[in-house]
């Protein structure tokens, strides 16, 4: 129950002028070090990190039975096989739907919840925050049977809605905490100024606060998307129809009890990884800003 609005943040104490930077010996030594001393270890680390990815690419692009260390002659037969014969085209669409819907729902609900936590004081606020944090300790597998029963009663088994709902619910606690911290970092006086200019609370939030939350929204949204994209358990348990399954479940079926098609598995792995890599490539800058702002300050 909301009892009163939080007071505006107190003005920050006056600061003295910053002292001129002192010469940093370590920094100077770093700048003067020969470049190879920096790039050689980094290069070795990079090679070490990239070898498994190269191996996946190799298996995906070389013909079955080849032992060549370069993907030549190159073939796309494994990609064609998983995309059409193994229905990865359908799984991909389902995963995109689940990921985008989870992203949208998580972000919207987290915005509302985070705003309430950041801007209002109410009696059980601390207990609520503690509850949100504690909910992170419960593994999804523990709640599988109750969730399954609930969705079965609601006739939502075998519907992508069940997976979207479960993913959203599991994403929300962390997302709400993160968003509330982002909102706390936006000075309350900005909103007050918008009210004075005639905005109501929602319009002030939409026009003034929301644009400043972009890094936070990207961080929370991408986190929700990637998590739901990779999550296996709920899709496996709640979806029975082959045409409704998602990429992680499809990948799992590429390994049978006694036999495994490594070319198809590698091609499936690349198809599964590409959207996540692209998402991270585009939002990397905002993601780092967003997480550091949301996690450290509060």
């Amino acid at each position, binding site marked *: 129950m909301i009892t009163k609005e939080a007071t505006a943040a107190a003005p920050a104490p006056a600061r003295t002028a910053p002292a001129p930077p002192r010469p940093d010996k370590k920094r100077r030594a770093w700048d003067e070090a020969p470049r190879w001393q920096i790039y050689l270890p980094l290069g070795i680390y990079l090679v070490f990190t990239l070898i498994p990815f190269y191996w996946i690419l190799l298996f995906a692009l070389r013909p*079955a*039975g080849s*032992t060549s260390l370069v993907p030549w002659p190159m073939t796309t037969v494994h990609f064609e096989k998983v995309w059409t*014969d*193994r229905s990865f085209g359908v799984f991909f669409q389902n995963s995109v739907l689940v990921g985008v819907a989870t992203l949208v729902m998580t972000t919207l609900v987290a915005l509302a919840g985070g705003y309430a936590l950041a801007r209002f004081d109410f009696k059980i606020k601390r207990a609520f925050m503690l509850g949100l944090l504690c909910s992170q300790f419960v593994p999804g597998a523990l709640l*599988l*049977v109750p969730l*399954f*029963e*609930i969705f*079965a*009663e*609601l*006739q939502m*088994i*075998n519907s992508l809605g069940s997976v979207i709902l479960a993913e959203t619910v599991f994403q929300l606690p962390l997302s709400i905490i993160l968003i509330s911290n982002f909102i706390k970092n936006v000075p309350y006086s900005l909103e007050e100024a918008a009210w004075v200019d005639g905005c109501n609370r929602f319009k002030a939030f939409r026009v003034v606060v929301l644009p400043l939350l972009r890094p936070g929204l990207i961080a929370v949204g991408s986190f929700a998307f990637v998590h739901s994209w990779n999550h296996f358990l709920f899709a*496996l*348990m709640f979806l*029975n*129809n*082959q045409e409704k399954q998602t990429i992680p*479940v499809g990948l*799992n*079926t*590429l*390994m*049978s*009890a*006694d*036999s*495994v*098609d*490594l070319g198809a598995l590698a091609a499936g792995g690349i198809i599964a990884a590409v959207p996540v890599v692209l998402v991270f490539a585009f939002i990397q800058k905002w993601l780092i800003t967003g997480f550091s702002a949301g996690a450290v300050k509060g």
Partner: protein
Amino acid sequence: MKISNLRNSTRRRASAAVALGAVLALTATACGDDGSGGGGDKGAEGSGKGKIVFWDNNGGVRTEIWKEVIADFEKANPDIDVQYVGIASTEYQSKVDTAIQGGGLPDVGGISASMLAGFAAQGALETLDFRLAKSPLNGKLNKDMIESMRAAGGGDDKLYSIPTSANNGVLYYRTDLFEKAGLEEPTTWDLFYKAAEKLTNKGKNEFGYTIRGGAGSIAQALDAAYGQSGITSFWDSSGKKTTVNDPKNVEALEKYAALFKKVTPAADLNNDFTKMVAQWDSGTIGMLNHNLGSYQDHVKALTTDKFRGIPQPIGPGGKRVQVSNPVDGVGMFQSSKNKEAAWKFIEFATSAASSSKFNESAGQVPAHADAAKDDWIGKAEPTKLAADALSDGSTSIVQLPYYLPDWNTISKADNEPNFQKVLLGDMSAKEFLDTMAEQLNEAQAEWQEQKG
């Protein structure tokens, strides 16, 4: 005063909305039914028409062949529609267990001997004896496989799954490497050890054998132990004490575990079947123990010119002893609302034509006697050799206790880490087998007590 009234009114409206929401949610919850049952649901015979759901316990690689069988069935039975759901073998048990608890079981499912006891103990499976007795399948299915399924059901001597096929342990070896080294085919354990040593050249990354140290290691270790000791029964004559820690088995396992790092790659410590098969197919390793299931992978990677798959080596006294591989089959869930149609599908899927088609694709030994005579078996050498070994009396099978509800825990979570300790020399083979024997004897006593 006015503000207070407004607040009270808002609160009342909010309370009413919450109450209405709760009532609607409870109503929806009470009325909801997805039309499928859980473990306690007794189901119904149904009309023999309409839709049935089939869960494949080894989905993925077998999806295409099952879809073919289903298409044939639907052509022969146009009023029945079969919905196929392929589930990865590693996740099948947990998915079925969740459905037993929460509802949503299919009508028909792939049920292998290794998971039969758990499902039957939860009352989820329909007994199939009386249906089989009236079916044209009666008398046509391999008797040993039927008995294996009966025994795996948990001791009530009922049949819960109609066998489709048997898998069997195979020793794959590289014919090109053996020829080059002038080695004889590893038909005996002595020849096996000799070849493993001679084919190893660690400097050139060449190894004589690859051992299974990760997931699934216990069955292979027991296969090697019983194969060399020649002991043919898992239990002693009283049926209360296991023979796994018999001194002959201890000696055999010591010798086998000593191969690790001496003639095998060090990475074998974490070998599950995927890694083991992949490194054999792409490396220079002389021999591999696996089952018929990976034959097609080896053909793709090496072609038939470079390897052969033969039954396990012969032990002392010219006798081959192997531990049992789980028989695979299809069963009916008790909660099915259309048991008549479900049985029609099971009957069709295990018929000679379907069994032949399915097993040719899987490379396994068909359960149907007529399918076992088909031409393709003669062309798939390891399958033919396995079928001969299982039927010509040259091989004794040690039946593993799949009927024990604790078998999967004992043979996986409890003892796989201990076998790794044996390979690393941190635990003796005797200590390892004694620990496992103690757990098995306890589980057997508990099972016998429950059985009365």
